[in-house]
């Protein structure tokens, strides 16, 4: 079958004809200078080779053009499978290169194909659909308020450490059904694992933190099996595939995927947007003033422009031809959401931030059946943090000194610190520690972590 009947790409029978001239491009997104050279690389690939073979990391295809990424992300002959036990065709999942610790370890449903992927997705949808996430808005606004209140009287805040790290962490744990006070145990490893290179002197410590987080997740899974409490962990504990409970290692992989997806990406988006708005004060004023019409398109534009998760790997599972280039079974493939998001064929002025951009069909949540299942959470959390900052610290200035971008943006285009100053104000309520306790009570009493099929009402925060 051709990819969705599209003429541009079709599966070929085995043993078909000779080698075509293969476009080549040296591509290594893990080098320290990749962040600086991203634009040049993107422009050159769009101009000369929207899909190309690179010899880096044992060789793989790189799809940079929007049309190529669109076709391949939705192609049934392209696989996400990570076959850790060599039971199928030995495919290596969604990371290039393979993460050191991930060799024998599958990253949840993102490293599964249908139908297996579909079982997990169906179990999780009622917790993460737009209607399900909307119920959490008062909860999100309340933890955002507390984060800012901890600093609002000082006139100084780090938007990463003090806000954008905290809110996604607390909300993700609440949705999973993990006690909220544990957020600090999860917070550091979830980010540090992404930005700490394997050869860093800090790598061993980060690994230990990550292991401690894994142990806590597993403990929660065991507890919830014995004595159920609502949340996504409960959904996974109850999941049956062909009548069988999946192995625990698959459930832990799934939970790690949700932590990885839920924590670092939204932090990255928020930090970059706040930094950009600090550098463009007129745009910040305009966004704040016209937020009723501008907040939605601006959010999509920040997603497009900053692309927190810059891409995903795949494996070609059946020979396909794409615009004259032949991809063979077993070959690895990098789908660059970040480069597709800058394609002038799809976006006018692709390297500018246009807050009211129309027709913004960006790639930042991926495409096809693996579309980011947390996209509604990401948008909700981002909008709550952004509007609170605009309302409560409207004159904030980010400080270049102390701002730290990730050294390597191969996995997440993130930031470690974003300090800012602003005119101090009076606080409006308790800080994070007390608020987390109150929110735990709210979760428990109202059963907030239940799926939308069991509960339709929004969280009620006011006492």
């Amino acid at each position, binding site marked *: 079958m051709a990819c*969705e009947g599209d003429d541009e790409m079709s599966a070929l029978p085995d043993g078909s004809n000779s080698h075509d001239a293969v476009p080549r491009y040296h591509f290594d997104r893990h080098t320290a200078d990749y962040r600086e050279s991203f634009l040049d690389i993107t422009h050159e690939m769009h101009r000369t080779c929207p899909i190309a073979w690179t010899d880096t990391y044992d060789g793989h295809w790189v799809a940079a053009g929007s049309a190529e990424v*669109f076709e391949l992300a939705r192609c049934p002959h392209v696989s996400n499978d990570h076959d850790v036990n060599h039971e199928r065709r030995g495919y290596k999942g969604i990371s290039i290169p393979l993460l050191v610790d991930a060799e024998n370890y599958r990253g949840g449903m993102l490293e599964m194909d249908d139908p297996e992927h579909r079982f997990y997705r169906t179990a999780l949808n009622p917790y993460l659909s737009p209607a399900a996430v909307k119920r959490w808005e008062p909860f999100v606004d309340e933890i955002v308020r507390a984060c800012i209140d901890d600093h609002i009287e000082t006139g100084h805040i780090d938007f990463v450490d003090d806000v954008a790290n905290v809110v996604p962490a607390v909300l993700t744990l609440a949705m999973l059904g993990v006690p909220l006070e544990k957020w600090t145990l999860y917070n550091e490893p979830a980010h540090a694992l992404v930005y700490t290179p394997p050869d860093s002197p800090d790598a061993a410590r980060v690994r230990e933190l990550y292991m401690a987080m894994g142990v806590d997740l597993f403990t929660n899974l065991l507890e919830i099996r014995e004595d159920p409490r609502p949340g996504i962990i409960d959904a996974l504990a109850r999941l049956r595939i062909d009548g069988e409970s999946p192995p625990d290692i698959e459930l832990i992989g799934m939970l790690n995927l949700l932590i990885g997806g839920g924590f670092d990406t939204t932090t990255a988006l928020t930090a970059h947007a706040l930094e950009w708005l600090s550098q463009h004060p007129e745009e910040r004023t305009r966004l704040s003033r016209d937020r009723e019409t501008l907040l939605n398109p601006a959010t*999509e534009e920040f997603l497009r422009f900053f692309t927190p998760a810059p891409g995903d790997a795949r494996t070609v599972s059946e020979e396909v031809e794409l615009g004259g280039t032949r991809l063979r079974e077993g070959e690895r493939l990098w789908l660059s959401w970040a480069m597709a998001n800058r394609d002038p064929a799809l976006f006018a002025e692709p390297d500018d931030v246009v807050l009211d951009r129309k027709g913004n069909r960006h790639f930042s949540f991926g*495409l096809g059946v693996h579309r980011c299942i947390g996209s509604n959470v990401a948008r909700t959390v981002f909008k709550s943090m952004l509007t609170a900052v605009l309302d409560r610290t409207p004159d904030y200035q980010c400080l270049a000194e102390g701002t730290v971008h990730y050294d390597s943006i191969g996995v997440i285009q993130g930031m470690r610190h974003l300090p800012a100053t602003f005119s101090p104000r009076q606080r409006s309520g308790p800080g994070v520690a007390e608020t987390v306790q109150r929110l735990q009570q709210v979760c428990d009493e109202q059963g907030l972590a239940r799926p939308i099929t069991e509960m339709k009402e929004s969280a009620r925060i006011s006492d």
Partner: protein
Amino acid sequence: MRVEVDPSRCQGHTLCAMIAPDSFELDDVDGHARAVVGEVPGEHRDRVLEATQSCPEQAISVMAEQLAQARAAHGLRGGR
């Protein structure tokens, strides 16, 4: 003008309902979209067209009313 969401292509990105909330609704459980009414009133036309262009999966199709009727008369659905 008629509008349709192809359920086999929609993956629940939700942009259509964000752009044209009067014309698209999202499923409570999986967030996948459907057109509220097949025929788009004139005042919603521009937003529906923008939603169509914004769909990351290119799952939305619009067509002129006469064309839709002609296709239906020949037993055909949809169209892009």
